[in-house]
């Protein structure tokens, strides 16, 4: 890329993020309620219980945190490019709550236990996110103008409110067991990550991430407006279809697995854009790495801050993201 914003070579930025992610993995792998020091795992042979905890609980959880973080932040970057708007984010636009409502419906209406139930949740999440995305997309067409922005945010607000209301209704009619399942899932937590969930995520999320990275050049061109982008060789409708499918699949699966983890898709791409510039060829992979890093760190904090109890990680990201979003709105107001 010619002249990135920081004057920082692209590869160096990505390498730095990869190194930070590896460090966070090491930190996360050996912290938690059950202290598993590196010496225990590498030097002294671990006890069967240590090994069981590490293999069956911690490893799938780390994997899931990495994939979900990468997907949420990557889809935030892609949606911001698609809507040509820095405030587009899967949770603000209602995609996550649309997926959430569909997953809740699945849990209440069908038997959601076992691997089949889990993959049914994936499908429900995908379809819920897709339906919301199509509605929002129709409303938000028209570029980066203030009017389109307000329409987008209001549409997101309406969908979030509606999904909340229907979610409440579902909770009202759910059985005790379903209610327990709903509330555990709805808090936005990775606490129930086991191998079936991690394998499902491994199956769905990396292809979606790869697909989004392939859209980088098209997303760059789209920033010129559809007419100019067409003149530069972009098939805009095809690009939109690809981005919408990849983000809704990814976000739907993330919500099905971990509930609603807010603001990651807003926070990470926005910070990285300030550092690395708006080019998606760099921004998309950097956001994915940054999102994975942030969720991994947030999840480690969620596991350890109140140990042996756990804080839902969605709560932590919202505590971080909410004030940041307000600050962002104030900055925009000032610049207008």
């Amino acid at each position: 890329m010619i002249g990135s914003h920081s004057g920082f070579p692209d590869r160096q930025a990505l390498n730095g993020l990869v190194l930070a992610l590896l460090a966070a993995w090491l930190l996360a792998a050996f912290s938690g309620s059950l202290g598993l020091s590196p010496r225990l795992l590498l030097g002294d042979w671990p006890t069967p219980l240590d090994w069981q905890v590490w293999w069956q609980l911690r490893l799938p959880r780390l994997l899931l945190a990495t994939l979900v973080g990468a997907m949420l932040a990557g889809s935030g970057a892609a949606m911001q490019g698609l809507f040509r708007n820095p405030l587009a984010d899967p949770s603000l636009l209602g995609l996550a709550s649309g997926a959430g409502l569909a997953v809740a419906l699945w849990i209440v209406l069908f038997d959601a236990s076992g691997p089949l139930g889990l993959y049914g949740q994936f499908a429900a999440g995908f379809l819920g996110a897709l339906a919301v995305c199509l509605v929002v997309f129709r409303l938000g067409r028209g570029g980066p103008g203030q009017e389109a922005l307000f329409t987008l945010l209001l549409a997101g607000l309406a969908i979030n409110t509606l999904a909340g209301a229907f979610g409440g209704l579902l909770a009202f009619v759910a059985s005790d067991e379903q209610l327990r399942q709903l509330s555990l899932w709805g808090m936005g937590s990775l606490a129930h990550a086991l191998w079936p969930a991690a394998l499902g995520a491994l199956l769905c999320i990396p292809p979606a991430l790869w697909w989004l990275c392939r859209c980088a050049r098209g997303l760059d061109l789209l920033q010129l407006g559809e007419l100019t982008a067409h003149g530069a060789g972009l098939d805009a409708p095809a690009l939109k279809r690809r981005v919408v499918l990849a983000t809704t699949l990814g976000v739907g699966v993330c919500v099905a697995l971990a509930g609603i983890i807010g603001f990651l898709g807003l926070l990470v791409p926005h910070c990285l854009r300030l550092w690395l510039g708006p080019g998606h060829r760099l921004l998309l992979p950097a956001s994915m790495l940054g999102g994975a890093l942030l969720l991994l760190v947030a999840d480690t904090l969620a596991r350890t801050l109140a140990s042996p109890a756990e804080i839902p990680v969605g709560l932590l990201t919202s505590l971080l993201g909410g004030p940041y979003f307000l600050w962002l709105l104030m900055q925009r107001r000032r610049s207008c």
Partner: protein
Amino acid sequence: MLTLEGAGFTTVPSLAPLSDALAPGELVAIVGPNGAGKSTLLGLLSGFRPPEQGRVCLDARSLADWLPEALARRRALVAQQVRPSFDWTVRELVALGSEAGPAQVAESLAELDLTALAERTLTGLSGGEAQRCMVARALCQLDGGDPGSLLLLDEPTSALDIGQQQRLMRLLRRLADQRGLAVVCVLHDLNLAARYAHRVWLMQQGRRIAAGPPGEVLGAGRLAHVFGAELHEARVADGEPPALVLAR
């Protein structure tokens, strides 16, 4: 060469069928009142909106049959008053959508007097500077412009001061005369069209009502009727089309 073979739109915004050819080295100005169909015509020429009747061909091949990437190397477009989203630097923006190397980017920047602004971000630029960036980007996309390449511009001078207007129109004329580009430019300023274009197409209500050299098309009487404005002609120099002045 770009050819129009009875090409037009039947649905709104409609455009009456049009047949003509744009030869390499030709600068055509499209003029007409608001809502006359100038931008619609540019959409037809660029292939953004495929014709609902007739054909638009580049080098005897319908625009729809070109691969988008191959077409992008032969045809570039500068849309009306585009403000790209996000804060690109001028250099990043000019390089967007092209396979040109740093040398070509630098050349395009220099052609539009943007070298000094290359590392500035778009937020810090005036409307006119941003407009020049978009023109530089289109030039870069054409990689300098092989003869017969097509450059389409929708009101490229609308935010420029008169000095920049003159420099841009001189550049467009030079691109046509010296590099053999076919340049099509929607203009509101009839005097710019008269001064720099080889041919002028006059549009009214979705129809081209006149086409030819500026001296033939831009008569004060016809324009007064088309635009509903009272105009005077002021002689400038022998052999040059007269300047058009609004009556007080």
